[in-house]
């Protein structure tokens, strides 16, 4: 790696690479504005695109599947670029209820079976996936109250960094709690709902 560079520039570049000095974003902005002096060949470009596509596919499969209805429905709607006003008449749900659903603010048990069937058909969700998400979301909504208490406790801390770390921990706690078994009565209610949904499918 023979170089013909100024020794001071070399030293400063090393300091930049090691994160000891910054250019306040000037260098980073320059890179995007500069016309590249080296052009990669079509072959290398295509090879890289294929590599990236393979990596994208594998990262997609590794990515955590949406566990709640809210994240799933929101992701699906954004991915398909659907507008709420086009969607709601076909699902037979009011916009308020749908928004609550997208934010996991309402138990899925409060939506009628026929509406869930419409949602399932419209988004082409496999029944077992839908059941699992309904189960998970109901647990989440059920345990949300205790999560709020946890959040309130952590919010009282003044130090912001500590607060951020604790909030993250609290979020983990929420999901851990959401996997806890529901009380028997609540579990029976959920099972009955899911049975009814499955029967409707038959």
């Amino acid at each position: 790696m023979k170089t013909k560079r100024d020794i001071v520039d070399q030293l400063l570049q090393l300091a930049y690479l090691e994160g000891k000095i910054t250019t306040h974003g000037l260098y980073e902005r320059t890179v995007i504005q500069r016309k590249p002096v080296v052009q990669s060949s079509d072959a290398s470009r295509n090879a890289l695109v294929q590599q990236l596509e393979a990596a994208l596919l594998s990262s997609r499969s590794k990515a955590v599947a949406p566990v709640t209805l809210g994240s799933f429905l929101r992701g699906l709607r954004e991915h398909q670029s659907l507008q709420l006003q086009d969607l709601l008449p076909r699902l037979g749900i009011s916009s308020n209820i749908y928004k609550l659903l997208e934010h996991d603010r309402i138990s899925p048990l409060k939506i009628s079976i026929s509406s869930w069937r419409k949602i399932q058909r419209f988004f082409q969700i496999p029944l077992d996936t839908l059941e699992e998400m309904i189960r998970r979301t109901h647990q989440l909504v059920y345990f949300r109250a205790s999560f709020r208490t946890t959040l309130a406790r952590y919010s009282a801390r003044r130090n912001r960094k500590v607060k951020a770390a604790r909030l993250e921990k609290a979020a983990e706690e929420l999901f851990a709690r959401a996997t806890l078994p529901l009380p028997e009565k609540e579990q029976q209610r959920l099972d009955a709902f899911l049975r009814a949904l499955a029967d409707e499918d038959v």
Partner: protein
Amino acid sequence: MARVSNQQIVRELKAGDRIACRHLVDMYQSRLLAEAISLFHVPQLDAEELVNDVLLAVVSKIHSFEFKRSDGDFHNWVMTIFRNRVRDVMRRHAFTDGLYESYDESALENEQAYTHIERDVVRSILHRYEESARSSVEEGSAGKGVNALQVVAETLDAMESWERVLLRCRSLEVPYEQIARYTGKSVKYLKVYHARVKKKFLKLLTQRVPNAS
């Protein structure tokens, strides 16, 4: 071809849309390759591998990326990954070949403006960096090479703000026009004073590293 926004690339990548890979390559491959080769003097083959690594890291870690302030966040994130990969290459290079020794001797001879003492100071810092790079490569620990360059940052801190910006940015070939906009100085002024500021920096550095030889 119309330029695709960063927001769009991120949205497509997160949705698993394959077209995002093409957009990412169109946007970054040639640019990063040019930076690695012409600015950081990474050999062509290593540079190609480096850029592939950077873009693969972008794709595989996209789920951890979130926009916080603006559309430019994504570009800054890509540049941070790029910088870290170039740093790793530099550390390996410092460890295997040595940095100062790999300079083209004729280029050093042409640097009449620098005295022997000044060159010895730079050489001693680079040797310290090489030693710390060796330990960081061998032990797999990150960030040890930084200590050897602490004196560079401290010396810059002792200079005026516009001088610091000028030196830092010109070492990365940021155009004078852009530095002028940032510092409020004229382009002509910056061009004239660049060499002098460099000399001043080396003088201050020599005072801080007195026992270089």
